[in-house]
């Protein structure tokens, strides 16, 4: 048992691989039975990984900022090692990944009929790689997982995607290539300067300020594309539109989080001065993203594009939260990423449900679904409200913390970013109105049946988590605190916020005109 716990992260990466191996050897004369067996094997592998992730969460010690479940083995030469472990910043992303996988496997149960074997193998490989990204403690290992994860994703979009899938995967490739190349160069430089690729060691290394700026920009190129930030976001709507439902869920739910995670794992701790130096750039791009993409979302006719654009807007909140460099902001950013992983994933699943029935993503083809698909309509409204950031659901907590942190930093940022709250309500409710409300006047829409048992099973855990995160978010915030506080204390303790309070002289008392400098402590 102890052996398992000491190797928990490796085990979590291994289980999907073993699952993939089984899928590979499943053979049966009857193709239908073969497919069924493949699906079950995949589901069981992902469920088992999920159980392991719960063990990980349960055994995680939230009181320390140290890396836990650390495994380190020599790997390539004497400089690159297989070094994995999680801290408060990464642990919940591993859980998120493991949580979404069984759901997407179930979501693909009936909608994917061609090349089921390859499809399931791609997803299982993807799971291994994604868990690897969030647990790698060697920058080279991280890079391998980070880039490697794109390969199954290209395949998922390119093989099982929509009509224009080649264009979408090409665009996806071009953007990420640009970012990756720059990041790779930076990694080389860091290795040459320090002689190590070990992340904890690199965190303690102080790079020269000028060098920091260049390295920061190189990493930024890669993470900004992944987030995605404006103006390098245009691959996302196309990728989502062309990807199969499960691909969209993983793309929005997990892959987009790698950018934010990258900022927290590399940019902030390794290049703190550059981080402060370039924060204005991030804020400007984030605010533009929030306003710009919210407005674009308002005029979309394609459901998936609308949700994709809303993702870009939500990620704008995340980048703001990360770079305001206080506990509220960073914890809010992490929370927003977790919440967005659930909510946008669920929204794409919702799209998948009606796409499976009518095979179109055009909003105007639907309408009045709350008459014939009552349960579906209810669930769709719930997730829309979570996306809008209604308190009591997951979206609110992260958004609130981010904006609170942003206001502490500078009220201008909070002022502009909060406009996104108004615009978010506008585009989301407009979508809800066109999909589920109104007259049910189209014959093919009338014929659509409500959710079946499998679909209900998919949504129940998502709804439960959305409310859990909204009502008792401390379950998710508690493991984060120590690591975030440590990051701020060790790297940004001298940092000062710009929203300043002067407690002026209170005339009635003879208190001296003490200029109390008051920040968020």
């Amino acid at each position: 048992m102890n052996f398992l716990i000491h190797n928990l992260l490796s085990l979590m990466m291994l289980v999907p691989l073993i699952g993939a191996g089984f899928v590979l050897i499943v053979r049966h004369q009857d193709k239908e039975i073969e497919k069924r067996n493949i699906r079950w094997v995949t589901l069981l592998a992902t469920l088992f990984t999920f159980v392991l992730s719960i063990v990980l969460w349960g055994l995680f010690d939230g009181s320390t900022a140290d890396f836990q479940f650390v495994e380190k083995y020599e790997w390539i030469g004497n400089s690159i090692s297989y070094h994995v472990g999680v801290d408060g910043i990464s642990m919940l992303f591993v859980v998120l990944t493991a949580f979404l996988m069984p759901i997407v496997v179930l979501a693909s149960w009936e909608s994917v009929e061609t090349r089921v074997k390859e499809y399931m193998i791609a997803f299982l490989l993807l799971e291994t790689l994604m868990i690897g990204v969030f647990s790698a403690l060697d920058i080279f290992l991280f890079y391998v997982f980070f880039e490697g994860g794109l390969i199954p994703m290209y395949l998922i979009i390119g093989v099982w995607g929509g009509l224009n899938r080649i264009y979408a995967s090409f665009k996806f490739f071009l953007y990420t290539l640009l970012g990756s190349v720059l990041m790779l160069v930076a990694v080389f430089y860091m290795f040459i300067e320090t002689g190590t690729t070990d992340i904890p060691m690199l965190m303690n290394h102080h790079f020269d300020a000028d060098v920091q700026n260049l390295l920061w920009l190189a990493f930024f190129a890669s993470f900004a594309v992944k987030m995605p930030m404006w103006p390098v976001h245009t691959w996302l709507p196309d990728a989502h539109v062309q990807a199969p439902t499960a691909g969209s869920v993983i793309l929005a739910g997990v892959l987009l989080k790698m950018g934010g995670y990258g900022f927290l794992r590399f940019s902030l701790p390794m290049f703190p001065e550059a981080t402060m130096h370039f924060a204005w750039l991030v804020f400007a791009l984030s605010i533009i993203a929030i306003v710009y993409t919210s407005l674009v979302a308002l005029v979309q006719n394609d459901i998936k594009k609308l949700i994709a654009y809303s993702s870009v807007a939500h990620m704008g909140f995340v980048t703001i939260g990360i770079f305001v460099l206080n506990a509220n902001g960073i914890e809010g950013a992490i929370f927003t990423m977790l919440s967005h992983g659930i909510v946008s994933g669920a929204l794409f699943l919702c799209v998948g449900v009606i796409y499976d029935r009518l095979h179109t993503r055009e909003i105007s083809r639907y309408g009045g679904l709350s008459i014939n698909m009552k349960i579906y309509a209810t669930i769709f409204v719930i997730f829309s409200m979570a996306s809008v950031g209604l308190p009591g659901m997951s979206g609110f907590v992260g958004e609130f913390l981010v904006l609170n942190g942003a206001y502490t930093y500078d009220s201008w940022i909070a002022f502009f970013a909060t406009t996104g709250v108004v615009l978010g309500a506008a585009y989301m409710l407009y979508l809800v109105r066109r999909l589920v409300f109104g007259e049910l006047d189209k014959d093919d829409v009338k014929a659509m049946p409500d959710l079946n048992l499998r679909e209900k099973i998919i949504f129940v855990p998502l709804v439960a988590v959305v409310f859990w995160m909204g009502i008792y978010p401390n379950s998710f915030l508690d493991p984060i605190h120590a690591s975030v506080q440590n990051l701020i204390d060790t790297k940004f303790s001298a940092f000062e916020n710009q929203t300043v309070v002067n407690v002026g002289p209170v005339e009635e008392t003879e208190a001296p005109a003490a200029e109390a400098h008051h920040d968020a402590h």
Partner: protein
Amino acid sequence: MMYKLIVFLPLIGFLIAGMFGRRIGDKASQLLTASLVSVAAILSWMAFAEIALSGNKAHVHVLDWVSSGTLNFSWAFKIDTLTAVMLVVVNSVSALVHWYSMGYMHEDPDKPRFFAYLSLFTFAMLMLVTSDNLVQMFFGWEGVGLASYLLIGFWFKKPSANAAAIKAFVVNRVGDFGFALGIYAVFVLFGSVEFDVIFANAADFQNATMTFLGHEYHALTVICLLLFVGAMGKSAQLGLHTWLPDAMEGPTPVSALIHAATMVTAGVFLVARFSPVFQYAPDALVVVTVIGAATAFFAASVGLVQNDIKRVIAYSTCSQLGYMFFALGVGAYGGAVFHLFTHAFFKALLFLGAGSVIHAMHHEQDMRNMGGLLKKIPLTAAVMFIGNLAITGFPFLSGFYSKDMIIEAAYASHAPGAEFAFVMGVAAALMTSFYSWRLWFMTFMGETRADHHTYDHAHEGPWTIRFPLIVLAVGAVFAGMVFHGAFIGDNRVAFWNGALVTSAHDIMTEAHHVPFIVKAMPFVVMVLGAVLAMWFYLRKTDLPQRTAEMWDGLYAFLLNKWYFDELYNFIFVRPAFWLGGFFWKRGDEQTIDGFGPNGVSHAVAVIAAKARKLQSGYVYHYAFAMIIGLALVVTWFMAQSGGH
């Protein structure tokens, strides 16, 4: 435990009716939700006795909510007199509306959903008024917004109902924008979002300044104004009022509960709750006074010419909320909350009465097609008559005590804006009397203008409709008489017990000592308004038509609600859609993609064209290229490490 029951019983009703409504059936859903809210209402009166009448306070911790950095807050209840008053108002009206709806929604196929929404609303409203911190209040604030959205759009097949629902939510979000920024500002200043901490420290920060949008301002003024923007949205004050009239698309019981008695008073509640902070922000109070007074006047003026029975009452609500705000602005916090309290009775009565008319007339809402209904539905006519007397301030009915106090306080105050508020308040009182009686005369008196079939079949509703009307009528008559001593009279300091800023020498004492002519003024204009209405609608029935023609410009201006909707459509809605399209087509597709990926891809167009024939094989190439790349990198590292 009692307080938890009061708040959570409606939630239980919502969950059961919402999730299992179709399984347990219409009848069970209705009875269950109505009973649970009724129990909560009875418990609320017990709480009122316990807290307000006995001078107690209570604090109930339910569950931790968020802790991050130095920010901590919980799900918790702060029960003081102000909360107890709101509990009574919310649960009493809600219970009556639940029962009323059983009759009113009799023919609707979606009853469980309707009752679930009503209970959800009640729960959210209770969370709002019981909160011990700003964020939970915001939860309730948004929760009532959600319930309002769902109920306005309850008949979701109607495009107009959908549009009104979205409008209500989005316009409220504009207010929430201010509210949210206010919460952040409070946290920066006080280091907490909990009321007890904020109010205890407000005095220490009375001269504090804070940077807001790059400038130094008086910190408490910034906070109060930001919070007031939120209050303006929820309470439909001038500028953010446009959603309220449209909200009448919802079923009438909803209008009575949400858009008259409870939710729209949340803004008043917020400012009253923050009276310990507002008292140190005189500039913010001036803004509250002026906006409130302007709203009272504006809404009353629009109410003069509306023909839809519900819209008249909606503008009336908007106008009465204006009264409450300028009462707050001049420092008569108790007067404002007292008007909130009495208004809940007579306005819910008027709305439910209007609902009874609409029910009798088979969903006819245009008063031009009514008339002569006194003979057909005398009970409804009688209770609406009482409601009119109460709202116009007929002596010794509820409105008389609360509204007159507000007008007198505005006169007595020397704060900037108070004089304006007094003039607007009196003018609005005149118009209130006119439009209220206009409504009554057009509906109940004269020859009927309805078609024969409808008129002949008009009849009173079942007891579930009649009973709430009678209860509310009793409230509208006696609420002022019984409670004015406690709310605004000599007992007020003991009664409020620190929940509001009151003292024995505040503005309300001065208001009791204004000249007789000022005290008589509301009465005079009330009579004047009633007589004018009688003249216009009973005697010279061609006069309204002639007046409208003579002043056609003014008439159109009022009928079109001062053109706010057109203006907002022009400045906000259309540009938003235009910009969205522009950014999408010109920004993303033409500029970013044009110079970015498409520009690059153009260079390799030939390859792409070939690749398209290879279909998915093309993608494998990428994958393959990446693996090769990774292999090269590994080799490089191996070579490097070998060299070390």
